[in-house]
């Protein structure tokens, strides 16, 4: 048995005529933070939707903790939690009530205690009894991530956790995610920001043109794609340069 917690093979999905995923393959190991990096419209949310049992693939196989996403969705749902692209809160409930609600739905013992612990952990104790729709963007996102931790799921999906946030709120959320890493859960993060992947992920996969065109640690990616540049000082390529180099390459391949 491999130690892959998430494994995805030859995943395909089209919407009407539009082929969004053309055979996506990757594996995520236990306990790591894995970033799926791709530009807007690359199909990141589609991958997350399929893995979190919201959508069925046209072809291919995906499993989470050795449960097949299509055929054992019930078991998969016991092992995951989804933090979608938009903070999924009940704006009319307070932060604490939101946490209590999810804790009760997940059937955890002592929902009140769980809620208070998470509020403290995410620096939301002062806002616990305020309505969630009065929270700032960063606070909403933190509450959203806190909601996903209830019941200690083995796998956490974070779909573009900082899109639409201002730089300050982005830093807050990064801190939150860094705290999660090492907590035992496996995290699949999607992002269109290179810096975010660089900051948070143990390994990165680049989704482009419906396929994963590169996977590896930042160092590995750097070795794979040295930028074609003559420079007098030794300089490490940034992930941005790597990304652009790969995408340029990908497009050349497509054109041929």
């Amino acid at each position: 048995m491999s130690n892959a917690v998430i494994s995805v093979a030859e995943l395909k999905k089209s919407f009407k005529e539009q082929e969004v995923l053309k055979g996506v393959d990757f594996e995520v190991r236990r306990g790591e933070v894995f970033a799926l990096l791709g530009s807007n419209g690359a199909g990141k949310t589609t991958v997350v939707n399929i893995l979190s049992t919201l959508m069925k693939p046209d072809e291919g196989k995906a499993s989470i903790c050795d449960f097949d996403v299509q055929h054992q969705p019930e078991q998969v749902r016991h092992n995951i939690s989804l933090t979608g692209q938009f903070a999924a809160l009940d704006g009319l409930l307070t932060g604490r009530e939101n946490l209590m609600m999810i804790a009760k739905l997940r059937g955890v013992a002592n929902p009140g205690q769980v809620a208070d612990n998470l509020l403290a952990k995410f620096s939301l104790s002062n806002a616990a009894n305020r309505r969630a729709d009065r929270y700032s963007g960063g606070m909403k996102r933190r509450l959203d991530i806190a909601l996903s931790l209830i019941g200690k799921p083995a796998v956490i999906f974070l779909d573009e956790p900082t899109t639409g946030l201002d730089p300050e709120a982005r830093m807050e959320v990064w801190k939150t995610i860094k705290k999660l890493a090492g907590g035992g859960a496996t995290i699949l993060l999607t992002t269109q920001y290179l810096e975010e992947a660089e900051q948070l992920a143990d390994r990165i996969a680049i989704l482009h043109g419906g396929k994963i065109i590169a996977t590896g640690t930042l160092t590995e990616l750097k070795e794979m794609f040295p930028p074609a540049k003559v420079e007098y000082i030794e300089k490490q390529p940034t992930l941005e340069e790597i990304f652009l180099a790969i995408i340029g390459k990908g497009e050349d391949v497509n054109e041929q």
Partner: protein
Amino acid sequence: MNSNTGVLLWRLMRNIMRSPDTIITVAVTPIMLLLLFVYVFGGAIKTGSDNYVNYLLPGIMLIAIASGVAYTSLRLFTDVRSGLMARFLTMPIKRSSVLWAHVLTSVVSNAFTVVVVILAALFMGFRSGANILDWLMVAGILGLFTLALTWLAVIPGLTAGSMEGATAFSYPLIFLPFISSAFVPTETMPGIVRVFAENQPVTSIVNAIRALLFEGSVGNDIWTALAWCAGIMVVAYFFANKEFKRQLG
């Protein structure tokens, strides 16, 4: 009802308490209609009944429910848009409990609205000699009518592309009672309109409620009324669930 439906019902009821406009708005329009018809048009309308409030109330209750179910579409639409729906559907809970929570919320909040409308009618002179059993049957018909329209409301709630789109379906529903026996006897209507009025669901439901409240009998229309409600409910339930499953594919 499983405990998850209970938690979700609690959540939606709390939402309603915190946005009281959803109950007040729903009760205000029917009460305004009641006032308008009783004190403005009432004198000119001949229904053959000496108490026009009595005559109007059954139809007005249906209008209240028809406008109330639009909030179910709205709440569902909001859940889909906000991503809460996706969160619930990726949790290990029964998926049907998510829709049932919305449907039960509609039944509870519409019951509340109807009670407010009845209280307003009492102030305006509504009187009934119905016994407790008659009232229970009226409640049963109204409950079934609410369930039927709520399942209908679930469909645009899941599919609509905008807030307006989610609620637009309710306008024709609110209008239906006007072309029925709710305000004037159908005998006064011209040919084709009369045929429509006498064969659409509202007329039989209004007539059945009238019979229970004021004649102490179940009347002749009760079976037609129940058949309409049950029929609409079954068809709407089927399509709502089909749409729910389709969106997950």
